[in-house]
């Protein structure tokens, strides 16, 4: 199972995107769990996740987040402004799987 975490300030704004991603995952029948978290949970969640997606509004944390994720082999990616604005769950999920080398 692929475990994906979405991170923003309070886990509120990414939860809109989360809904779209879950819809697409179900449509595709993917075996994955996706959750939205507040950025403060980063250190706790990093070891448990396969992919960490960072909301563009906190992309200045990218280096720090990469530092927390790298030792656990957790992949990280900043969601682009456009994808985040359109809440494009399909594209973001495809890219997240792409980080793991899986094509969906």
């Amino acid at each position, binding site marked *: 199972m692929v475990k994906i975490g979405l991170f*923003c*300030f*309070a886990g*509120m*704004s990414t939860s*809109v995107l989360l809904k779209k991603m879950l819809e697409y995952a179900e449509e595709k029948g993917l075996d994955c769990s996706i959750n939205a978290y507040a*950025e*403060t949970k980063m*250190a706790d969640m990093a070891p448990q996740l396969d992919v960490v997606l960072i*909301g*563009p*509004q*906190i*992309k*200045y*944390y*990218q*280096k*720090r987040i990469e530092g927390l994720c790298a030792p656990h082999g957790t992949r990280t990616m900043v969601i682009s*402004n*456009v994808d*985040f*604005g*359109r*809440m494009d769950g399909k594209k973001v999920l495809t890219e997240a799987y792409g980080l793991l080398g899986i094509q969906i």
Partner: protein
Amino acid sequence: MRTKEKFTDFVEQKIMPLVSVVSSNKILLAIRDGLILSMPVMIVGSIAIVIGDFPVPAVQAFLASVFGENWNWWNWDVINPATMGLVAIFTTCGVAYSYAKSHEVEPLPAGILAIVAYFLLLVQMDGGGFSLDSFGSQGLFMAIISGLLSSAIYIWLIKKNLVIKMPDSVPISISRSFTAMVPMGVVVVLFVIIRAVFAMTPYGSANDFILNVLQLPLLGVGTSFLGTEITAGFFNTFFWIFGIHGTLIVQSVMQPIWDAAKYANLAAYQSGLQIPYIVTTEYLDHFVFLTGSGLTLPLCIMCAFRAKSQQLKSLGKLALVPSIFNVNEPIIYGLPIVMNPIMAIPFFITPMLSIAISYLAMAWNIVGRPTGVAVPFTTPAPFGGFLITGDIKVGILQILILLLAALIYWPFFKIWDKKCCEEENA
């Protein structure tokens, strides 16, 4: 387009690294996370206050007639001192815990050590015992400072390996309990010395020194009209225009001040005194970040129901519910407001105007001030305004300000809608 690219480069290369350094600072992060740790307790304590001291006298009278005069005995004397009244203790523990955690050392002993350090600096009352005041707002800055200092010493000694080592045959859980002993001893000695030094100053105690030299002056500047327009008004918006979470950045510096103002207000409200501060954490959530930074709910409604552009129409519908609950990233990134010189104008004007109107209305006592009750930032208007002040007029003021925001956004919305239509038809 080329100027826009240059601008983006400038942001990516100059502003972003600066923001990254400030916002990833371990001390600032520890303060922020430490303050956040006590939030659930504060909200539960606030619910007790809102029910026990319900802002509508008729409801209070009714409850008193049903349950007796003393029906809310559990409120100010029982739940409040155990929750909001202990904010300095939670903060010192939380800050030390978060700071130790960010340095990857066992965090819980650091939290306990911080409470020890905090009490070492408190001066007992004349008849013995501690004043309850020293656990609340008045001790907040000392809580942060002593939490950081004790935690820093603890981390340093652990990293230097200055701890008591047990033979390998001793179980880990037992040997671990000895690890914190040396740092504990060092912190106790050091804080006793600090206490003795401050006792010799005219302030008499570390708490009074920090309160009068640091906390009160910073609160005075940070919660002033100009200070609020600059931090929450200008800088918050400025960062968002570049697609950076301005609120998070401004908060990482200002949160201790806004929280201290909130708890000071609560203490005054409890004693029935004039509420001292206007600008608190809750004021900002419900007047400056109302429906999200830039007060964009009116803009969102226009997109959903008045836009000719299909793209804006679907964005408006998608963003409507989050906007009502004060989350507006879909609008900021979807419209987009980020790097958009047209929408930047109303996005700048609206929050600064909202501060001006609400600040003056509170300063002139036309409407009530925030009582210090903690309300989640997602509480929609007009309930948010009502709950944070206990004054229904404040809820109405929120609606009036949103209507004014609609007037400001309208012409810019028309321009942007026309532009999006042209692009869609091209």
